[in-house]
């Protein structure tokens, strides 16, 4: 009998292990190869600039090859964590400016010599700050982007819209006009996903709200403030009036520019490089404008997103990684990025494009070490889904999200 129990227990543990273990396959490193992780944005928006940087790098370092591996925002950090533990991490990695702090604090990157990069004294302060920690530079600003409206000029004309909207109310009225003229199934006058929190938070900031603030050294979620609730309510009304996108999806699946290229959107909201992919059919009938806020003359504050480039501490060729970054963020590369509709990394390069004007009124996420956990925990998206589907009232959803944010931001 005892034997049986022992045998049963042994087999049971084995079965359990089979159920509980997972495996990962590491890639093998190669000599004379520089591995670079960039986000897919570069792959769809500006592969030629990447190729030019590689060429320059190979000219300076004969015999080296550059292996650019494109990553997705949703899982690149998990992949990076795995390489930090198991080796074979990239020599250069692109990080979102909201993702940097946690990794710098943990010592994941090698410090860089700021003065060796082009235009370093004029770097955009928001981006430069996101790449600095404890007085050292770990991230080199790559590019920034604000969010603008990309729209169909022909549809605007057909709907009798003579001048671009100057307030949110006008934009909503225009959306109704567009809807009246375009009765096709699935047509959105203004397309954006219901859980696109970058758009939603713009409304919160436009009405004077904020995501979280500090109170005697602690972070406190602030989405339940009267201003934020007003902003979220305005967002809800605007979404219901203008977008036929899913209420429970953000703007990544499908990509807004794909919807636009299929003729199913009058306006899309997103980075200004969205103009890259609006489709051949509508290329000539496409223009952009700065999204208006609820007060006349004020733009809707755009999320100042951006990316930094960093060299992981595990890289075996840190100086080469820094050299590649120099090639990729040099003045000529930044000018090329600007031509694609991005905001270049330094103030002396700034022009007066729509995108750059939109960036004049912007907002940024709380600069807390644990902010990235709020993002990855989908606290904001979940709240927006609850609001738009009517599962909870704006006040209820905002209050519960606020509590969650407070507890995550103050985590250990």
């Amino acid at each position: 009998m005892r034997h049986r129990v022992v045998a049963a227990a042994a087999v049971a543990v084995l079965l359990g292990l089979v159920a509980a273990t997972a495996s990962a396959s590491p890639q093998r490193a190669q000599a004379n190869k520089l591995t670079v992780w960039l986000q897919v944005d570069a792959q769809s928006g500006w592969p030629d600039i990447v190729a030019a940087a590689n060429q320059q790098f190979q000219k300076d370092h004969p015999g080296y090859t550059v292996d650019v591996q494109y990553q997705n925002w949703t899982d690149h950090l998990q992949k990076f964590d795995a390489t930090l533990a198991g080796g074979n991490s990239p020599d250069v990695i692109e990080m979102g400016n909201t993702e940097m702090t946690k990794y710098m604090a943990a010592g994941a990157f090698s410090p860089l010599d700021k003065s060796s990069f082009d235009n370093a004294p004029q770097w955009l302060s928001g981006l430069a700050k996101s790449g600095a920690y404890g007085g050292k530079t770990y991230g080199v600003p790559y590019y920034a982007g604000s969010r603008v409206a990309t729209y169909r000029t022909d549809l605007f004309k057909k709907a009798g819209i003579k001048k671009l909207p100057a307030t949110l109310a006008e934009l909503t009225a225009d959306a109704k006009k567009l809807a009246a003229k375009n009765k096709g199934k699935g047509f959105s006058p203004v397309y954006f996903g219901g859980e696109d929190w970058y758009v939603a938070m713009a409304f919160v900031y436009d009405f004077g709200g904020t995501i979280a603030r500090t109170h005697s050294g602690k972070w406190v979620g602030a989405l339940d403030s009267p201003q934020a609730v007003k902003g979220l309510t305005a967002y809800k009304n605007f979404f219901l009036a203008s977008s036929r996108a899913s209420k429970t999806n953000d703007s990544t699946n499908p990509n807004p520019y794909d919807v636009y290229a299929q003729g199913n959107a009058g306006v899309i909201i997103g980075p200004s490089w969205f103009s890259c992919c609006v489709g051949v059919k509508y290329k000539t009938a496409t223009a952009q404008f700065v999204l208006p806020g609820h007060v006349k003359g004020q733009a809707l504050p755009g999320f100042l997103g951006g990316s930094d480039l960093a060299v992981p501490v595990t890289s075996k060729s840190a100086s080469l990684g820094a050299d590649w970054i120099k090639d990729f963020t040099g003045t000529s590369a930044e000018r090329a990025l600007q031509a694609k509709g991005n905001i270049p990394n330094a103030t002396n390069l700034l022009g007066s494009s729509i995108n750059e004007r939109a960036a004049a009124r912007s907002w940024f996420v709380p600069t807390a070490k644990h902010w990235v956990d709020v993002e990855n925990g989908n606290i904001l998206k979940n709240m927006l889904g609850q609001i738009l589907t009517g599962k909870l009232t704006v006040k209820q959803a905002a209050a519960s999200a606020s509590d969650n944010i407070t507890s995550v931001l103050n985590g250990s």
Partner: protein
Amino acid sequence: MAETEGAAVAAGAWPRRRRRLTAGRFFRASVPYALILPVLVAIGAVLGYPLYNLVRLSLQHYGLFELIQHKGQAVGLRNFSSILHDGIFWHTLARTVVFTAVNVCLTMAIGTAVALLLVRVSTWARLLLTSGLVLVWATPAVVAVQVWIWMTNFQNGIVNYTLTRLHIGNYSEHDWYATTFSQLGLATTLIVWGAVPFVAISVYAALAQVPRDLEEAAEIDGARPWRVFRDVTLPILRPVLLILTSLSIIWDFGVFTQPYLLIGQGHIHPGNYLMGIYLFEEGYIKTEFGRGAAISLLMLAMVALLSVVYVRKMVRLGDEE
């Protein structure tokens, strides 16, 4: 080997050589252990060492900083106590138990029904059905998830289109991912769809063991089909059904791929966690690897507990035969 054993057996019949006899006995007794030794060594290397590391990890604070330093910070049982005091853990556990029960019941019921159908249909229909089942079984989970996502697309998905056309209701732009219930329901359809072939084919094979004359005899005695199934077929199928149910429980309790990919990282939140996803979110997304290890050990203990019941039953069944 056979010769030595034969000699030992022969020696056993000779009462005067008692001493050698004990040695022979000892040898005979140790042979089985020697035979399983290589297996034990292999299992120890492949499973024992990782398990040892997992236990060690669960007793440490191991975050991003520790990951880069390759050195954890011992915290005793703090990971376990914080998890067991976390309301999210208990809610997730309850949700997972219900989810597993629903999935296993559906899988077993539909699988057995398909198997019974296979016995009764004509040869060509059986061939068609079987190849369909094998194709489903051969479809990788990731591919199946993508197909599901397409079918349930809220604007252009075929599910909404068909349901609307059949006048079952207005499903135009119905969002299948709007509520937790609907999300997990979709995951259930996908998991059951993928698991039915294995159950159906295994049960079909077992049905071949049911003596036809037994069933006929029961029918002649006036038993209705349901009665025949319950009192004749089912008892013979019992061992197979027991194995399949136990395996299904183990698979579904820790299921990750289908719900995670179907619901999507962007929609995962504590309100729709399953155990596998909870473990992934705590361990990998929040980079609290020690906590993740502790959760996986708790899951392991639960599955092991279930398995003890199952293995004991199996051993007993083996003894009866």
